């Protein structure tokens, strides 16, 4: 089987990553724009893509903008704002069908790139700043999104745990910004911060589909009106911070089920040579239905429906989450701590090792079937400065020994326990 690879290039401040392939019926396009997470800019940066998606200079009305997408055979357009490491990343995503599959009389890749270029660099303006109607409407949208975090109790508890754990780091910030900073934003201030963001951000454009670097480079030159300069790079966050005494926070709300979350510092990040062993550590502990957390909290003790661990490889943080009967808090915490202890004392069976390796290998192989997953995987290299193909990481995972995992376990420190339980306080 031939392996498709990303070809690299750059046009001014935009890094280009193009994977020419005939495997997909669509073109997948992703544009990443990252800046350091910072209290002073996080809210305006989060609001920016919401306003940009309302219209462009040539298609200023939102309905016309959406019709333009529909007319491109229902091109998909979306965006997301999230954090990786200590960066706040805005990602625009477009997918459009390859013209060969429909009776289109124009290049849909060209139409998509033109639209994306306009969204980023030629927004709809009035009097030289963003349209106030759009800014006000999208302020409301972001406000509602932030207020809505509490609606999903599982997510809310996970975010509160991170907030408590990283209270002294930029990582405490929510990628959608701060509620109390929204009110003061004006079309003028947002436009100024957008211009500043365009100057500062690291830009990476990915295209996967039946195209070439030459074609993409030509389309970028035609469609993206960015200032001249060199591509910016990401700063690697400091992940060496140690956990102090374990912070325990219990909060109350009207919930039927208690949401137990734990935050741990692994002090190993994506670029670290110990990262493959960290993947194994997380996999054996709680990444899968065969893992220790699932087997012990759920299958043996019947305490929960879900009990799992998750890794943020760029920040070196691991979180554990489980939904439990409120009265079982002590029991669940004890069982989870026992699993962490058993990782440290090297109680790892041959079977756990081979199962976890097989699952990680499966994931690393199957992501190569999806254009967006390949883009997401490759972007890790941009973020961390560490190039490691899926096959290379797979080889390193296969070579991980029990001793390697115990060494990782010795670094992992429990930092925070957060529990969301029933009833109002008092």
């Amino acid at each position, binding site marked *: *089987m031939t392996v498709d690879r990303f070809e690299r290039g750059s046009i001014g401040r935009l890094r280009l990553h193009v994977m020419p392939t005939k*495997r997909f*019926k*669509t073109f997948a396009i992703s544009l990443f724009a990252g800046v350091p997470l910072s209290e002073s800019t996080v809210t305006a940066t989060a609001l920016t893509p919401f306003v940009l998606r309302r219209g462009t200079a040539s298609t200023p009305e*939102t*309905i016309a903008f*959406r*019709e333009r*997408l*529909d*007319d491109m*055979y*229902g091109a998909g357009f979306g965006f997301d704002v999230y954090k990786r490491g200590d960066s706040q990343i805005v990602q625009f995503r477009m*997918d459009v*069908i390859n013209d060969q*599959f*429909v009776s289109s009389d124009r290049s849909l890749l060209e139409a998509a790139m033109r639209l994306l270029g306009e969204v980023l660099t030629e927004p709809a303006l009035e009097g030289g700043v963003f349209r106030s*109607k759009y800014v006000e*409407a999208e302020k*409301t*949208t972001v406000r*509602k*999104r932030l*207020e*809505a975090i*509490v*609606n*999903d*109790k*599982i997510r809310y508890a996970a975010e509160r745990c991170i907030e408590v754990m990283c209270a002294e780091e930029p990582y405490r910030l929510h990628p959608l910004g701060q509620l109390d900073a929204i009110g003061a934003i004006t079309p003028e201030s947002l436009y100024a911060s957008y211009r500043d963001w365009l100057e500062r951000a690291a830009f990476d454009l990915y295209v996967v589909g039946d195209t070439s670097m030459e074609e993409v480079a030509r389309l970028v030159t035609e469609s993206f009106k960015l200032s001249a300069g060199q591509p910016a790079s990401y700063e690697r966050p400091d992940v060496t911070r140690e956990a102090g005494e374990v912070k325990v926070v219990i909060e109350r*709300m*009207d*919930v*039927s*089920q208690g949401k137990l979350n734990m935050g741990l510092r692994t002090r190993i990040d994506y670029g670290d040579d110990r990262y493959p062993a960290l993947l194994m550590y997380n996999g054996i502990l709680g990444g*899968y*239905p*065969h893992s220790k957390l*699932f087997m012990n909290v759920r*299958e043996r003790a*019947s*305490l*929960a*429906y*879900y009990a799992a661990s998750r890794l943020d490889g760029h920040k070196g943080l691991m979180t554990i989450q489980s*939904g*439990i*009967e409120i009265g079982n808090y002590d029991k669940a915490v004890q069982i989870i701590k026992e699993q962490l202890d058993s990782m440290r004392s090297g109680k790892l069976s041959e*079977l756990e090792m*081979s*199962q*976890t390796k*097989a*699952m990680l*290998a*499966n*994931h690393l*192989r*199957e992501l190569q*079937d999806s254009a967006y997953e390949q883009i997401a995987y490759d972007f890790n290299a941009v973020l961390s400065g560490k190039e490691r193909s899926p096959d290379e990481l797979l080889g390193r995972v296969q070579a991980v020994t029990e001793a390697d995992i115990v060494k990782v376990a010795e670094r992992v420190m429990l930092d925070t326990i957060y529990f969301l339980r029933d009833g109002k306080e008092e």
Partner: protein
Amino acid sequence: MERLVYSDVRETLYREVLPNGLEVIVLPKEGFRKTYATFSTRYGSIDNRFAVGDRPPIEVPDGIAHFLEHKMFEEPTGDIFATFASQGASANAFTSFDRTVYLFSATEQIEKNLVTLLDFVQHPYFTDENVEKEKGIIEQEINMYRDNADWRVYFGLIDAMYHNHPIHIDIAGTVESIRQIDKATLYRCYETFYHPGNMMLFVVGGVDAERIFGLVRDNQSRKSFPPQEEIRRFFDAEPESVKKPKTKAVLPVSLPKCMFGFKEKRTGFTGRELQRREAATKLMLESLIGPSSPLYQSLYDDNLISDSFGHEYNSAPDYAFSVIGGDTPDPDALLDRFRVAVDRALADGLQKTSFERAKRKKSAVICAC
């Protein structure tokens, strides 16, 4: 083995019904590493009253199809997730209104994983003890959904629409109903609905169709099943009206969540006609209230809806309904505006341009799969 060519989307399917009744479909995808297989039974949360052959009908506790799905993963040798993990496969299952689906995806040991899938779903292992143990886990699953406002508003709507049809029953059942489930009833449901004649295997990925069919034929020929008898499902007659025009629940959320929908008065369609009606209704909803419609934009501009606003349509031979809605500060104002727009569309028809656009969009989505 029958060959079915779909030239519009450039795909070829292979299909065969085995002597024991199992329907097998393979969709080879050249150049893909992953293989994805589903093994499904026509058995879901609505199948709560049934009879086999000429035996008398029985009624089973709510949530039993989902409970059965959980229990299938346990074998005398242990948890089947562990077997899949050893073979590098990611396995899962889900239960919906009218089906239960077991699945895996893997990039290696495809044939071994396929045999594991066939064998564990065709081998029930229930004991009094393992059935009791599962109740604690499912109770937590039910409690998790009780805290989930999106799920509550969605099921609240369906419950308000249907008087009798079991579609209004929560898929997982209730804490009370699952307590009534025992080993004997699980076996009874299993034997009724997991007969190969009520099931389908679908394999898609970088596979060779001939090899897959050879393997499945061989696996199935070595198992014996009693002759298949007709399954009869019983539903009380469902009135045309909705049970309750409006219902409310109080949960700690930042903004009210409002869903509304239309219960179809005419049901009983099957096959292509059912498919045609479903496609037409989805197109109608997209033209009327999709993100490119003037109605959507005006509701958004007036702060009555947010990006969470959407619509869907569910249809089966004996029920069909739409679900529309999302977060809104003022459910009544939203409903008033929607009613006015529907009246206008009924009087003037849909805009031709927005209909054509919706049609093109939907067909491209199907093509791109």
